[in-house]
């Protein structure tokens, strides 16, 4: 703990990462209390105050139907975070298990599992997601499904390489000589040694999942209106540049803050866990 604090204190960028993420997470959780116009997250129309530049009480301005951008960004954070957490919660266990099994058993198991992984990795992520969304209905659930399908192989790759290295360690030999089960060796001996790297990657990925989800929405394939989403907000606002600049700039900045924050936090974790990549 002391070491952790010392690292954060010694590296202002890491501290900034922690700060930014705290800001994002807290605003997502407490959006109901912070947002000046909570009802603006839905289909509200206020033609008196539409398309206003930043001015009190609309500090980020309003959109084309008069909704407060600041309130909508807070709620968009909430959806982005839920999306990121759900995607990782599904992708990571799958990817990690496949990687552990392929790395530990080797031989045919490894050959088959890793070739499947390679197939998924060889398809450009956005193309895969777009074709899936084309087949299915463009809903939030399907969006998550698409992003999950393209995310797990990265964890398989990571954990597979870690497992192959850990397998050579003496403690694995010791467990085998004792007669411990394969499940014990894989999940109780090897997995704990992969956890720091996995956690670090998850933190970095939260930012990227948000980015990908935003890209999908930007293309009109993600979260559907009137649900607030950073990607769709940027896409919508881009049509009115440069006059209504606030429509694009603030949601864009919001994406930047989240992605940048998770990246800095990931780097900090990497230093704290002593993980080198």
């Amino acid at each position, binding site marked *: 703990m002391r070491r952790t604090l010392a690292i954060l204190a010694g590296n202002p960028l890491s501290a900034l990462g922690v700060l930014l993420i705290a800001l994002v997470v807290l605003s997502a959780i407490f959006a109901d209390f912070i947002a000046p116009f909570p009802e603006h997250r839905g289909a509200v129309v206020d033609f008196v105050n539409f398309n206003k530049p930043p001015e009190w009480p609309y500090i980020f301005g309003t959109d084309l139907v008069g909704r407060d951008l600041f309130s909508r960004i807070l709620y968009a954070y909430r959806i982005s975070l839920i999306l990121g957490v759900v995607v990782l919660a599904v992708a990571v266990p799958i990817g990690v298990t496949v990687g552990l099994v392929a790395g530990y058993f080797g031989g045919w198991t490894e050959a088959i599992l890793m070739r499947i992984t390679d197939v998924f990795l060889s398809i450009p992520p956005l193309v895969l997601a777009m074709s899936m969304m084309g087949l299915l209905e463009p809903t939030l659930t399907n969006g998550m499904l698409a992003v999950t399908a393209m995310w797990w192989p990265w964890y398989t790759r990571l954990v597979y390489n870690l497992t192959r290295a850990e397998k050579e*360690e*003496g*403690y694995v*030999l*010791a*467990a*085998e*000589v*004792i*007669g*411990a*089960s394969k499940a*014990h060796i894989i999940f*109780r*001996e090897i997995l*704990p*040694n992969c*956890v720091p790297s996995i956690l670090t990657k998850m933190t970095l990925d939260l930012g990227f999942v948000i980015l990908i989800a935003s890209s999908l929405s930007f293309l009109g394939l993600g979260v559907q209106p009137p649900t607030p989403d950073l990607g769709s907000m940027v896409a919508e606002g881009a049509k009115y540049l440069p006059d209504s600049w606030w429509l694009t700039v603030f949601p864009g900045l919001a994406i930047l803050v989240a992605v940048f924050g998770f990246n800095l936090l990931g780097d900090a974790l990497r230093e704290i866990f002593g993980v080198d990549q």
Partner: protein
Amino acid sequence: MTNPILSLNSVTKTFRTGGREVRAVDGVSFDVAEGECLAIVGESGSGKTTIANMILGIYPPTSGTIAYRGEVLPRRRALSHRRAIQLVQQNPLSSLNPKRTVGASLRLPLDVHGIGDRSRRWERTGELLEEVGLPADFRSRAPAALSGGQRQRVAIARALACESDLVVLDEPTSALDVLVQARILRLLKELRERRGLTYLFITHDLAVVRNIADRVAVFEKGRMVEIDDVEAIFTRPQHPYTRGLISAVPVVTREEQELKDSLTKEEA
């Protein structure tokens, strides 16, 4: 030899690497008597580690048999066979899982083999630690909080936990400082006497062998070139490779230098 605890009968192991067959162990036969310490001596490529791995059942011999108390060990080992033959590795830094406490590592063999009452097992880990000269409360520590010598004691305690009678010691002290090595060697000797253990002591260090082994088997390039009582090996080594090994030992006293000189003279 009456009723050896372990017998190897023309054991051969070949590995295939890059289309080439490499004979790592070539027609090796020897018996290990109950309660003795047999040293397996050789340099890298001698096949000593391959022999240890076959005895431990990490992989089976390509041909030949390994028998434990007269019973030929099958390709797939039963749990009871695993329990009977245990291992202490060279590097205690890697042989203990850094993410598990000392107690968790010691408890594993007890759980796997169902040794002792479930509720007593945690207590048992403390007793094992005390038997190797460590305080019982070390079980809640991480390996990283221990010195090299302490870690090796934990690894020894883990081998004892199975209550096996044959322990393969794979260079158990070569990663340690001399003062620590001396204490670990004494501990191993005491444990052997107290528990009536049989040791297969794999090492390249002949000075250690001289002081701990009853018999010595010398290996060169996968073949056993000489096996004899420890006295005979050091006073009348028959094979030139054995003589070379002994004269390569860096020594600290005049008597030792004289022994080496007498061996190199014979060579010339």
